[in-house]
């Protein structure tokens, strides 16, 4: 009985945490962008207000079956992936389903939402949406390659495909993977720039050319749901990188509520630091063309990816 309470309560807690942190970071990004551009900018909680407004609107128009499905698929992908990502080490509240699926599953599950979005945008008939989808899918082929190389390198080096195992290794040994396999971190970091879709890789939404691309026909509750999904996804990506490379979070030595609090603080600190990389890169870069964006990932990031695999093989003694 106690177990079930932990499971259900933990799932809710995880969802609320992911949502709050994701929305909060999005607001922070707007603020930082504004300050860099010498504006005052909206308050940090502006995204919550936006969401409240969108959710209180009544939708008048419908875009057919796939249009209805798009926000649902996004929320499915966000919730499912969230349940399989370990948030804190050794914490009953945040255990969820972390041991029931591995990295390959996560990699494919993360595409689910984008696919739903793409199909929904396709049915609206807006050519801007279709162009945005075409760009987004093409870019995905770009950044997934170095990212997968980094993941394969980690899997080979530590002989596991489970993200919880990788996190556990960093805890028990005390070595972070960023130092154990720096090339993998570089490849993943560069591909994360594409994953977050900020400048110079914001070719999907591209406000000036595509009028927000795939999103352009959605409004009201559907847009609000998509925003929520996006915020949760941003959190998921950050936690994934922290879990894989920066040692994860969760303080082992302190028990109880205090331990959880400290762990969450550690998580916030690490994710925030990592989040600032794509944000600051975005602030100073203009937009790439689609083919440039794809080719970017096939150049240096992929070289780092190959080096990461070779390094992993060297480390576990298969090479030489």
């Amino acid at each position: 009985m106690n177990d079930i309470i932990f499971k259900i309560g933990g799932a809710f807690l995880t969802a609320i945490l992911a949502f709050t942190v994701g929305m909060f970071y999005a607001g922070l990004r707007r603020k930082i962008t504004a300050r860099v551009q010498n504006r005052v900018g909206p308050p940090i909680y502006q995204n919550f207000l936006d969401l409240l407004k969108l959710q209180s609107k009544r939708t008048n128009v419908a875009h057919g079956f796939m249009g209805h499905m798009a926000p649902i698929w996004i929320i499915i992908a966000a919730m499912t992936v969230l349940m399989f990502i370990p948030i804190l080490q050794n914490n009953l509240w945040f255990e969820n389903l972390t041991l029931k699926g591995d990295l390959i599953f996560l990699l494919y599950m993360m595409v689910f939402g984008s696919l739903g979005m793409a199909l929904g945008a396709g049915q609206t008939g807006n050519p801007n949406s279709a162009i945005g989808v075409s760009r987004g899918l093409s870019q995905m082929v770009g950044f997934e390659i170095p990212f997968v190389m980094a993941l394969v390198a980690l899997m080979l080096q530590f002989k596991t495909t489970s993200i919880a195992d990788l996190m556990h290794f960093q805890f028990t040994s005390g070595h972070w993977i960023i130092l154990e396999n720096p090339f993998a971190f570089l490849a993943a970091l560069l591909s994360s720039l594409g994953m977050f879709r900020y400048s110079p890789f914001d070719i999907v939404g591209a406000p000036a050319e595509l009028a927000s691309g795939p999103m352009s026909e959605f409004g009201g509750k559907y847009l609000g749901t998509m925003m929520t999904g996006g915020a949760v996804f941003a959190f998921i990506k950050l936690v994934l990188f922290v879990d894989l490379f920066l040692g994860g979070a969760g303080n082992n030595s302190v028990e109880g509520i205090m331990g959880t609090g400290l762990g969450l603080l550690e998580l916030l600190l690490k994710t925030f630091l990592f989040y600032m990389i794509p944000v600051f890169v975005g602030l100073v870069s203009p937009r790439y063309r689609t083919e440039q964006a794809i080719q970017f990932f096939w150049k240096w990031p992929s070289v780092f990816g190959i080096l990461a695999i070779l390094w992993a093989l060297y480390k576990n003694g298969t090479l030489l």
Partner: protein
Amino acid sequence: MEMLSSLLLIFLIGAITTYFVDSINRKFTGIIAFLFVLLGSLFFYSNIHIGDVFVFQLGGIEMQWGINDYSYYFSYIVLGLGVLALLYSIKYIEGKARQGYFYASFLLTILGMIGVIISQDFVSLFIFWEIMTWASFLLVIYNAYYKVKTKGIKYMIFSAIGAYAMLTAIVFIKEHYNTLLIGEAIERGAFNFQQYRYIPIFLLLGFGIKAAVMPFHVWAPAAYSKSPMSFTTIFSGAMSKMGIFGIGLVLSTFYLQHNPENFYWVKLALGWLGGITAVMGTLYALIQVDAKKLLAYSSIAQLGYIVVGLSTGTKLGVMAALYLAVLHAIFKGALFMVAGAVERQVGTTDMTKVSGLIRRMPWTFFVALVSIIALAGIPPLGGFVGKWLLYEALITESNNYFLVIVIFFSSTAAFLYSYRFLFGLFLGQEEKETEHVKEAPISMLIPMLILGIGSIIIGSFPGLIFEPAAKAMQAIGFKDVTWQMSLLSNIWGNTTHLFLISMLIFSVFIIAFLFLTLKGLKKTRYVGTKEISTSGELPKEWENFTFQHNFFKPFERAASPLYHLNMNRIWKDLGKNTEAFFGFFRKLYTGNGQTYALYVIIFLVLLLLFKDVIFS
């Protein structure tokens, strides 16, 4: 009465009967063909058991037909898809010419495939292989009856090359190992790449051509997209698997051995051939504008994955290959049926002409959506299981680490053409030209829906396929293959719980559907595809918002070096050069008596000069 031969007799009688029924009453041709295949399948699964063997003499050669777990596994693909494809054919081919010819060839193809999987000696394997190839050739040229020379020629030539390679290998097996039985040849080590290496290479060539492996795939796109869609379902879904069946047989020597060092290079070469096939098939699929051609190239790519799986030689890898063989039959069969339904209802599958069919053909769209998700390998549908097995096999059990990246590139790029297929035919702008289009007839929808629901169920319970696949693997040399109903695990002990994932996805779907969609559904009205945000400008009636041309142009530009490799051109150049080379010999025949006299004199002089060498 021997069961195996009477099974073949059913199909043969079926072929002849349908041919003649067609000239009496054309209405019943399709139904009779369908009933014959249904009868054959029922007969197969009720009367034929694993371990049945039938031995007889023909012209002094001992022939042996039989069924084991491995061939039983492939019979599911052939007969299962065969029944559905024929049910689909009834309406699809209705009203077209030469139905007797179509159905007779169709039944003969199924006869050939069943023959291939039950033959246990090389002579009957070759005979049935040829029956299968010729019957399918007749169907490839069905739509180009009067232009045979241009349309079917590539398939013809490559099939002939494959057949000659196979025949050569069979002759050498008889010569060196003195047997024609497949089992004995494997036992005596005919395929172990030790002594007579050309024997397995020739056989792999023969089978590889049917499985459309690079660089022998060039016949496939044209043949798959030109033949009637109801046949392509079988052609790509089941007949290409005959090549996989053969490759599996040849490699079974490798699976049986415990230290397979001989196979290192074979493994590497076959694996990379499969990988390159997958990448090139995918790259060409995503630039096609014809949905049928897109599916044809995608078939080539999917077969590449299967070859990669077979080449690993590990339990997980071969399991992935066998699993994908069935799954590819399911989703690609369904997709070719979808293309056929669109072709029948609209008249074309050119994606630059058709779009926005989702509201006209909702059930067809549903099948297309499910099958595309299975193809792309997105959980919780069946395709994901195959992808998972293949990746984990390559990462954990094989030492071919860079092949993983190649496969991953191909399957990520597969999202592009998957989306292109759905968007091109079903989404996008609703056109005036397709306003009258109706949903496909019910007898075409039933087989499509069965296949679609199949890939949904298998996504949660892949054990349904693992069970016969594990038996099949034990029949070709593996020991103790373990499997679980809805749990995937690799040798490092990492697991993925599929049923749990499906339940989670399903429950989130229900909650979101109830609270998000249903709540506001009543008050909304459907707006057409013209009522879109255009920054305040009202689009005119004649204005066109269709985006279908050069859909992935940016990707094409980014990957342009890869598009320079064109196998078609290389084969054409090879053909031209060979022709020029033999053209030189043609010049010897000048038609002038004087020249011939000169040749005779030169020959005599040479004979005199070298007489010591020659006659010593």
